[in-house]
């Protein structure tokens, strides 16, 4: 006991010393100042970015990051935003090549501690968002995810992620959540493709299982039957053959894969065809509809093989008919010598929203701290609209996009000189928010 008391005394002294250090040092840390040599005249503000940028997940993270970089570079060429030059503070949440919630939270803390960071784009994965939002919420940093679709991030249950400031939302997103995307494909499978008996397979991860659950609910509600539901955790040496062998005799007429091409989507289709079930359509969420050309690194069609990619349908949680669509991809191509990824345009739009908020609030904010708060408040002013690469958009009070569109795509193996590519089928508008 005595020892405990002594330790506590030690702790208390420490606390005091540290508090003193903190006080002296609070605003100093980051590189806030800038002479305005670049685009802006008032100095530099930063957009924080957290994405998986190493290992296997580069395939997702890098094209998304490029979208952000393109928006920032273009803004700087046109004089920055609100008189500020824009920089990027980039953080990687992959540990050992896999997105990691713990590293995500550490990165978010790094970002919020940089006083020049007034807005953030990311993360890529819903599970990482669950550890990041409490951090950014506490700091009042506006955060835009281009790709998170888990329902509880903005809707029911999202207050758990904001223990410190439950009434001060800061997280918004541009992808339509699972409870829109899953049912959209269910309706498409049931009505448009006329399929009644689905085999549902998920990757046991937060995104894949979440969207597959929503698909299943909606498909059953429509009157469809679920032949079998399986979950197969992705590992680099995973094998799907036995899964498909086991459902063959149950005669499913459609397959729904909840997951992404990184967590096995392409491989699952390949092995499905090899198990002799190639005639059955393979459908999935935006995780598989990466819109990548066959042959490009890590794309669904590359992984499945173009010969196996017939009858593959995917949803994209965004609008197809981009007003600036072809324009965006040509600028992207010019900048990065590569086709945009599925989330490049959305990440670009995320950045556009933040940049607009920065330039409109810059005048009223006296310092970085008030600018950060002004940007957050601006984004959650439901009356604001934004002209983005995705068209005119606005947000609900919960931070979901009002113009929620689901676009349906199909693989056309004959595209791109036989390398395969995704073609647009149709798009559908949904009431955003609730």
């Amino acid at each position, binding site marked *: 006991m005595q020892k405990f008391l002594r330790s506590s005394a030690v702790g208390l002294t420490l606390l005091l010393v540290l508090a003193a250090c903190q006080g002296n040092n609070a605003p100093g840390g980051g590189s806030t100042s800038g002479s305005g040599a670049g685009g802006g005249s008032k100095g530099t503000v930063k957009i924080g970015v957290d994405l998986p940028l190493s290992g296997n997940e580069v395939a997702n993270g890098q094209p998304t990051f490029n979208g952000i970089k393109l928006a920032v570079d273009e803004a700087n060429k046109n004089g920055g935003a609100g008189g500020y030059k824009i920089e990027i503070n980039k953080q990687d949440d992959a540990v050992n*090549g896999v997105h990691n919630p713990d590293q995500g939270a550490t990165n978010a803390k790094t970002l919020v501690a940089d006083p020049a960071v007034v807005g953030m784009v990311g993360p890529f994965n819903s599970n990482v968002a669950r550890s990041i939002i409490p951090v950014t919420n506490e700091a009042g940093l506006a955060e835009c995810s281009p790709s998170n679709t888990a329902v509880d991030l903005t809707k029911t249950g999202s207050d758990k992620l904001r223990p410190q400031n439950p009434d001060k939302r800061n997280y918004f997103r541009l992808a339509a959540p699972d409870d829109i995307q899953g049912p959209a494909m269910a309706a498409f499978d049931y009505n448009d493709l006329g399929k009644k008996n689905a085999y549902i397979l998920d990757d046991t991860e937060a995104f894949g299982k979440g969207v597959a659950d929503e698909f299943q609910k909606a498909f059953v509600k429509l009157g469809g039957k679920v032949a079998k539901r399986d979950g197969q955790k992705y590992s*680099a*040496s995973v094998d799907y053959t*036995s899964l498909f062998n*086991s459902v063959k005799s149950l005669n499913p007429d459609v397959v729904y894969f909840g997951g992404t091409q990184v967590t096995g989507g392409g*491989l699952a289709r390949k*092995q499905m065809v090899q198990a002799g079930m190639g005639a059955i359509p393979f459908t999935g969420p935006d995780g598989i509809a990466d819109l990548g050309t066959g042959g490009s690194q890590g794309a669904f069609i590359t992984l499945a093989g173009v010969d196996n990619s017939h009858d593959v349908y995917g949803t994209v949680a965004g609008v197809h008919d981009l007003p600036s669509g072809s324009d965006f991809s040509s600028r992207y191509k010019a900048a990065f010598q590569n086709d945009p990824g599925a989330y490049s345009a959305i990440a670009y739009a995320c950045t556009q929203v933040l940049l607009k908020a920065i330039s409109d609030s810059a005048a009223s904010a006296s310092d970085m701290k008030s600018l950060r708060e002004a940007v957050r408040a601006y984004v959650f002013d439901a009356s604001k609209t934004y002209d983005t690469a995705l068209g005119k958009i606005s947000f609900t009070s919960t931070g979901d996009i009002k113009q929620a569109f689901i676009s349906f795509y199909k693989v056309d193996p004959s595209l791109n000189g036989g390398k395969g590519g995704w073609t647009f089928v149709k798009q559908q508008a949904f009431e955003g928010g609730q």
Partner: protein
Amino acid sequence: MTFRILRLALIAAGALVISWLLMIGLTWLGTRSESFSNVVATGTAQYFSALTIGAIYALIALGYTMVYGIIELINFAHGDVFMVGAFVAYLIFTSLGFGGAIKSIPLLIGILLLGFLVTMVVLGVLGAAIERFAYRPLRNAPRLAPLITAIGVSFILQNVVQVLISNSPVPSPQLVSLEYRFTLLGASVPLLNLLIFLVAVVLMIALQVFVGGTRLGRAMRSTAQDREAAQLMGVNINATIAITFFIGSALAGAAGLIYGLYKGNIVFNLGFDAGLKAFTAAVLGGIGNTVGAALGGFAIGFIEVAAVTTGLSRWQEALVFSVLILVLVFRPAGILGQQIGERA
């Protein structure tokens, strides 16, 4: 010698039949409502995919068990050696201009033989080099030192492949068309599955003959038993250990090639995962025992497929490791391991 091989063949044949029946039984458990012919067809199809996966695990497990047998090192880099094998085969085939199925049978056989030969030699050399530079200097260090080195080598191999080739999965050429199939009891099985099984069995038998019947094999066995005594008898310890690594890695290379043909999809981090399963297989069979490793490999493949068949796909990994724990609790030296005490 002949008697031993005959006995082994008999046991193997028995195991093959029993596991087939077992798989059909498990399929029936998983899908009770179906007709009998459906159950037999599904069970047979599952049986062949278990054999294929098991053959790959078994080939990798052999390397683990050989290295462990001779220097008592859990070579965590071995899984990544297997991965490098898959990529070497990929590079050979694509650089020769073969991206897909080869229609001409003689050409196919020629290319496959060439692929096996080159991959196995390259990987053998790689394995021996790893031993020479990463493990040999540590032969007298604390037991955990080479283990950590092995983890380090594993990271290095993964990252070199990642940087040099790709950080996302790469489609590997499936030279043997999957359209070649045979039908058995209503199940349509790719001929490739059978081929993989046969290749694995041939390699395993070759290994048994080599270890059991050649001078070098005798040197390996004696080194494993008592290194000092072997040395006194004139066995070149360093060379023997290097050869063990060469053979183990060559087998992993062959497994890598087979894996590429079967999966058509390889990625830089596939080795750690597959290696973990293969290591489990080696322990399950009784580490240090080559027949046990093969048996363990097939057992793991069987459990994985059985998990899916009975509708427990989400619990697949947990099942594999639960079986492992149970086997070890009740039979602490593995299925075929000798029940010997601690070597002090």
